[in-house]
């Protein structure tokens, strides 16, 4: 039972993404760069986006954190690359619903990010999974405010 419980949170794909995350590093001249801290644990994430014509052309992240936060950043950046700002905002809301709402119905658009569904059962770890998504929201807000 313990082990099932553990595997609900740490799905194999999460372990793999956390070990060797995609899109880790720096962008050359990003449109926006956002640094967010998780004040309860000291984790930090820096998210960089390259945006043109309201499309996220490229995205990278760096920082330090637990497997959940690193895997979430890896999977989120894969998912969001090439999406419009509006699509990205919708995905962020969908992710946040998935991770907090027990009656959430799978939203296929979340694709690989659906594996974080199990985090819902670990309230102390929700912040780990959402940190990078919050950085995305902040980045988009910043771009929209400066553009208009």
């Amino acid at each position, binding site marked *: 039972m313990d082990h099932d419980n553990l595997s609900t949170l740490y799905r194999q794909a999460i372990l793999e993404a956390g070990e060797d995350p995609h899109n880790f590093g720096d962008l050359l001249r990003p449109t926006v760069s956002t640094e967010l801290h998780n004040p309860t644990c000291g*984790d930090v994430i820096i998210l960089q986006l390259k945006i043109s014509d309201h499309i996220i052309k490229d995205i990278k992240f760096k920082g330090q954190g*637990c497997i959940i936060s690193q895997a979430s950043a890896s999977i989120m950046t894969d998912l969001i690359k090439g999406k419009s700002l509006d699509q990205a905002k919708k995905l962020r809301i969908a992710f946040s619903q998935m991770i907090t709402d027990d009656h959430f119905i799978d939203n296929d658009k979340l694709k690989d990010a659906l594996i974080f569904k199990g985090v819902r059962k670990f309230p102390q770890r929700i912040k780990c999974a959402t940190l990078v998504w919050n950085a995305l929201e902040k980045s988009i807000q910043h771009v929209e405010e400066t553009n208009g």
Partner: protein
Amino acid sequence: MIESPYRHDFPFFYSQKEKLKRAYLDSAATTQKPSSVIEELVHFYTEDNANIYRGIYATSQRATSKFEAVRDQVKTFINASERTEIIFTKGTTQSLNWIVFGYFWDRLHSDDEILISVMEHHSNLVPWQQLAIHTGAKLNYVNLNEDQQLDIDDFKAKLNSRVKVVALTHVSNVLGCLNPVTQITTLAHKFGAKVVIDGAQAIGHLQVDVQEINCDFYAFSGHKAFAPTGVGVLYGKKELLEKMKPLEYGGEMISDVNYQNTSFKDLPLRLEAGTQNISGVIGLGAALDYLNKCKLNEIECYIKKLTKLAFEQLISIPEVIIYGSKNASFHQGIISFNIKGIHPHDVATVLDIKGVEVRAGHHCAQVLMRYLNIPACLRLSLHIYNDETDIQQLIIALHEVLRFFKHGS
């Protein structure tokens, strides 16, 4: 097998919430409460509940005398010279903030220095930082030595006549080390600096004698020493408390209020505005009774024995990195550690599933985390109700962590 002779005094461990045995290893965050404290609270609210000082009636008088009796108890417990040197607060944080904002705020200048250490908890760091920003004084830090203990030579080197205040923790909430506060105070006083000691992790673990330390201020919380949350103590030498500005004005701290001005009561009431945490203070009294009954030297001895065992078991796991001294006896019931290559939050989640309750994070000591160059760590902290089975449960769970993350489940 080390068995706790005190565990049966704590109903928390027998509440049968879950089938899984929980190993509570986070007493540095807050302690569980003995039944005598819980019963005292029930008794107070059942028999004696009334506001203090105000009532002419018997119940109020009873509540008042119980409340004031705890002031005498605290005075004896920390060996203050006068009962008026004991001010009730809501905890260590409030005590330290009052010291900074009520005493030092208008007394420092831009060419002064404040000397603290890199191991301070945020509550004994951030207020001093604010004071430094406000006055332009320099905030300086004492570093650690090779054994990750307070570096006394570095302290001596940074001490000079510009230092107006030295603020130091008695026991570090991360490294678990006991600082030589008496020696520090003697040295600081030679340069005319005042000394503030954060006793949050020392109280209930060690005999604290403020006259022997000779510190100017001492702060602690009740809840880390078996008392309820929301009650703490600010000790200060009388002549300093006399000069301290209240940060709260209102009921019961006044002697005469006119349209445009007010005269205030004497210590300690001048610094205790509004209705106090009466039940909390009475609970603190019961907690001190319990500590006296257990005897602090025996408590210290028991926790030392258990800490040594935990330390030895932890270092037997090659992936474990321990922070603080390499000598187990220099850890006052607190051991902070990490598992190589696994983030402390991931470790803590597995431990939680296995019923082991430790703290993971920066422990309100981000400066120390920066100094040690780690983002966070795990911390186990022990008290008298812990026993060898708790340590065993932790060690088994840590092996499970290694199996799961290192060897692909």
